[in-house]
């Protein structure tokens, strides 16, 4: 199938990719070097491919690249400050040991970021519900839940 152009905003910058209709957003991003977006199951199950689409967390393996025409995509690369400083959500994961191998981390961080935008002070249950679609094979989740709570504190201090 012939390639088509898709124009969108990636981490605040306008970009144009050439993709086939069947190319998922996950594959398109990775092909263009955005490798924080991880390719896990490609079946919508694991959440390692999470991105924010117009601020809403979705699994990029379930989105066709052509569908993001005119829209805005945020990945973990986009959370890092211009000075290279980690975003408070990322910092919290580092401090609280929410990371072991790191494969799930970009997705976890993005879902956490979206959760805290919507609900700055989530309960334990709300955290679990929000992260139910992001699987981690290493940490056993307790470190991750701690990281989310820490991130909420850091963001509050910042505000």
């Amino acid at each position, binding site marked *: *199938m012939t390639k088509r152009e898709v124009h969108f905003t990636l981490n605040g910058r306008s970009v144009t990719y050439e993709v*086939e*209709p*069947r190319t*998922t957003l996950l594959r398109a991003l990775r092909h263009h070097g955005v490798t924080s977006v991880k390719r896990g199951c*490609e*079946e*919508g*199950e694991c*959440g390692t491919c*999470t991105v924010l689409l117009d601020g*809403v*967390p*979705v*699994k990029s393996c*379930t*989105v*066709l690249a*052509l*569908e993001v*025409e005119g829209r805005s995509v945020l990945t973990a690369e986009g959370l890092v400050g211009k000075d290279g400083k980690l975003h408070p959500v990322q910092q919290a994961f580092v401090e609280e040991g929410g990371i072991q191998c790191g494969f799930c981390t970009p997705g976890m961080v993005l*879902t956490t970021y979206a959760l805290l935008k919507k609900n700055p002070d989530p309960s334990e249950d709300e955290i679990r*519900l*929000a992260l*139910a*679609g*992001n699987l981690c094979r290493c940490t056993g989740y307790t470190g991750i839940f701690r990281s989310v709570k820490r991130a909420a504190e850091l963001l509050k201090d910042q505000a």
Partner: protein
Amino acid sequence: MLAFELERPRSLQEAISILEKFGNRAMPKAGGTDLLMWMKDRLVTPEVVVDLSLIPDLAGVNFSKDGLRIGAMATCTEVLESAAVEDHFPALRDACLSHSDWLIRNRATVVGNVCSAVPSGDVMPALYCYDATIRIVGPRGERSIPINKFILGPRKKDMIAGEIVTHVFLPLPEGKSSGCYLKLGRRNALDLAQVGVACVAIDGKNGREYRLAYGAVAPTPVRALEAEKALQGIKAPDDALLEKVSALAKEAVKPIADVRAGVEYRLAMVGELTKRAIDTCVERLKEE
């Protein structure tokens, strides 16, 4: 995934004419959470995928005094966060919340769940309880059909090439009501139902009325009409009645054994979840 062409029409008319032109070689796509996975596994191999997401008529959830209109592109998240759904259609809210996980719910649509027509589809039992009708447009105009006539069997629905479901409509229950959806899976998130039970209780003009519908325990979702009758008019069913009702519910279903559960287990759970669902509805109506 095999190669295909993607069409992104901006009007219903355009979508219908593309779908009609390509017939069985084209398929509509809403959230794509089923379609893209089926295409990956080559269970379906459309040459043309018609993305419905840019068609304004298909967006949103709207509530009026007559009832609720759920547009074809309304996601499970949109539906479960709607205040009208929380107030008037709690079984549907529960069902959407039981569906997959937050990220998938941000893409997956309620109408797509119906159109996939898989027996375990989580939103369907609630829609059966609320007497939902499916609104369709196609080359021959518009039509409207009750959900239990629309769903014909596993992955089979009453639709011809060129047709699109525009929305589902749920009439407002006539009287104060409560409802719930209980889903039994092997884990809390990201699992298909082994048994799903929706229950709605309504204090209408003929007294208390109950509706019970089941998913994943027959080729299509089913209502347990005999069980509903046995409960008619009774505000506080006792244990003996609940036993009888759960036996009637088991007669209404026809489960199979598969990787997720065996027949006996599913039947036992139909009985148990029926009692719990009725209890929940009765309690929720008392609280108000």
